């Protein structure tokens, strides 16, 4: 009977394709939109992952997320260094500073100041130059995307001229020379990232009493970072998070305090509804059209259980195909967008999520059809 069910399904080419299109659409929207969403949300903390090396981030207790800098006094650094279990602790400056380009335009940059001696907290990958070049006078390292886009210039014919090693910038009236190009993960803010030393960053930054944004801490071997955060907090009154903890803090902030989740939630819900409407409607009219065939089978002795199985199988087949196509299209989309500014991340949980969504649609579509077929009078076979 499964064979008959499958042949029945594929026999009606236009309906078959219609149902699959509906399901493909639904599963596309239900994976592609959340993939962009997850990508965006990952960006919210990509700076933390990029820094990588330290176990623990120490900051003002009022800080809500990574871009919410509430500077500390430099003396806090020494207090943290004094906590037992701390292997090393380094300062990190993170702040927005206006850069003036050679064409006179201004561009706000995310300036990162690294500990002068160790340069800990630098970019994950250098494309040109070396991190150590930051020890040269006035030197800065710029991230590739920033150099290409926001800090780049336009040539006379409109072609883009990226910022190169050796080029000059003015950061808050301080001369800076580009000594390297780095690859960084795109952040949520999408300003160009400019790396320099902590002391130089302090010089460039607008005069303030406190300029220490974060203290990066490495735990001594054998010391559990989680335990160490508690020790640091009780000794200094500052907030200390493990790298994961700080990422979660940032992520949760964006989840709670921005419209991003709601917007994507609406897209996903719409995709689900539209897909469910198309697929459910088409599946139902497919069943209605085949009602006589089901009645003939019933008259010839096929029971409701058998017909139920046939309809579920039909729904399952279109579900699997639509799901596969939708997920496939999403993957192609993600691949095509891999080098663009678009955020896209496709963790396996999304496969599960959209799979459940498509399954729900199929069950709903099958459900209304099943009711119709279960109550079908086999005597209708003699009606013409």
């Amino acid at each position, binding site marked *: 009977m499964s064979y008959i069910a499958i*042949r*029945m399904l594929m026999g009606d080419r236009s309906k078959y394709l219609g149902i699959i299109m509906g399901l493909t659409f639904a599963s596309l929207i239900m994976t592609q939109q959340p993939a962009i969403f997850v990508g965006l949300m990952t960006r919210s903390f990509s700076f933390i992952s990029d820094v990588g090396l330290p176990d623990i981030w120490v900051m003002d207790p009022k800080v809500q997320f990574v871009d919410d800098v509430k500077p500390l006094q430099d003396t806090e650094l020494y207090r943290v260094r004094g906590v037992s279990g701390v292997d090393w602790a380094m300062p990190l400056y993170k702040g927005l500073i206006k850069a003036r380009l050679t064409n006179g335009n201004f561009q706000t940059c995310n300036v990162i100041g690294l500990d002068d001696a160790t340069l800990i907290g630098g970019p994950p990958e250098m494309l040109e130059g070396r991190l150590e070049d930051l020890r040269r006078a006035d030197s800065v390292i710029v991230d590739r995307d920033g150099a290409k886009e926001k800090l780049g210039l336009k040539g006379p014919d409109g072609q883009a001229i990226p910022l190169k090693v050796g080029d000059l910038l003015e950061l808050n009236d301080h001369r800076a020379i580009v000594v390297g190009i780095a690859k960084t993960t795109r952040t949520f803010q999408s300003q160009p990232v400019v790396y320099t030393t902590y002391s130089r960053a302090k010089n460039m930054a607008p005069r303030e009493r406190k300029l220490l944004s974060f203290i990066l801490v490495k735990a001594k071997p054998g010391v559990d970072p989680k335990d160490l955060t508690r020790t640091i907090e009780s000794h200094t009154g500052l907030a200390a998070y493990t790298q994961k903890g700080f990422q979660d803090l940032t992520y949760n902030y964006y989840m709670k305090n921005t419209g991003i989740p709601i917007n994507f939630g609406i897209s996903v819900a719409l995709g689900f509804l539209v897909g469910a409407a198309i697929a459910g409607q088409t599946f139902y009219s497919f069943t209605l059209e085949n009602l006589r065939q089901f009645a*003939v089978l019933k008259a010839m*002795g096929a029971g409701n259980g058998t017909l139920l199985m046939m309809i579920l199988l039909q729904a399952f087949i279109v579900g699997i195909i639509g799901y596969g196509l939708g997920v496939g299209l999403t993957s192609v989309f993600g691949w095509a967008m891999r080098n663009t500014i678009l955020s896209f991340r496709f963790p396996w949980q999304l496969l599960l999520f959209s799979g459940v969504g498509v399954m729900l649609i199929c069950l709903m579509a099958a459900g209304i059809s099943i009711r119709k077929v279960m109550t079908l009078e086999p005597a209708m076979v003699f009606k013409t």
Partner: protein
Amino acid sequence: MMAVHCRNLTKGYEAGGQKVMALRGVNLDIPVGQLMMLVGPSGCGKTTLISVIAGILDQDEGTCEVYGVDLKSLSDHDKLAFRAKNIGFVFQAYNLLPSLTAQENAAVPLIINGVKRPLALQAAANMLDRVGLGQRLTSMPSQLSGGQQQRVAIARSLVHDPKLIVCDEPTSALDHDTGHRVMELLKGVALDAGKALIIVTHDERIFEFADTIAHMDDGNILRNPSLDEAPDVPSNEPNSPLRQPPC
């Protein structure tokens, strides 16, 4: 042995708040080995009667036994199994499944009976061969003429070797010659091993194939005087003989 034995069958339909009596106490016997035709004006209850006999409709009152089994007394499950095993259907509108080939269509009753697909397809091919469609196994219904489709339907009605074959106007969509061929097939193939056939028809051209003709009008069986002299007329005593003239 009676293939069909009906006593005092009644069946009414609710339609628009009104009760329409489609069967008003039908008595009918069909002996094994006979081809009975059921004739009568449109709306007199023929389809309702064969639906009850085939076990796809429950009567309101009276009994209907098919090969000694009272269908109404069976559970839903047993009734399905009984139909699957013992009844063959032929419809005026053929009712083939449009997305299955001729061979697959003819195999459906066997598949419903749980026969494995290769075996079922083999039996279907043999049966199609007997109805003269051995060359059209892989044709789709839409590629076949009306007569050919009805022959596929006949192959389907016989493939599982049922004891009773129920046909509603099997020839009325066919031209004279095709109708004759279809009847020859039905008569030849179906009656070979202790089966019985009941054929509802308007089609006078095929009356010659009948062993008996039962006339029906307004929910009752009337005796057909022209068959009175036939030696094997069953005891289809009408409740109210010739209450209304057949039209």
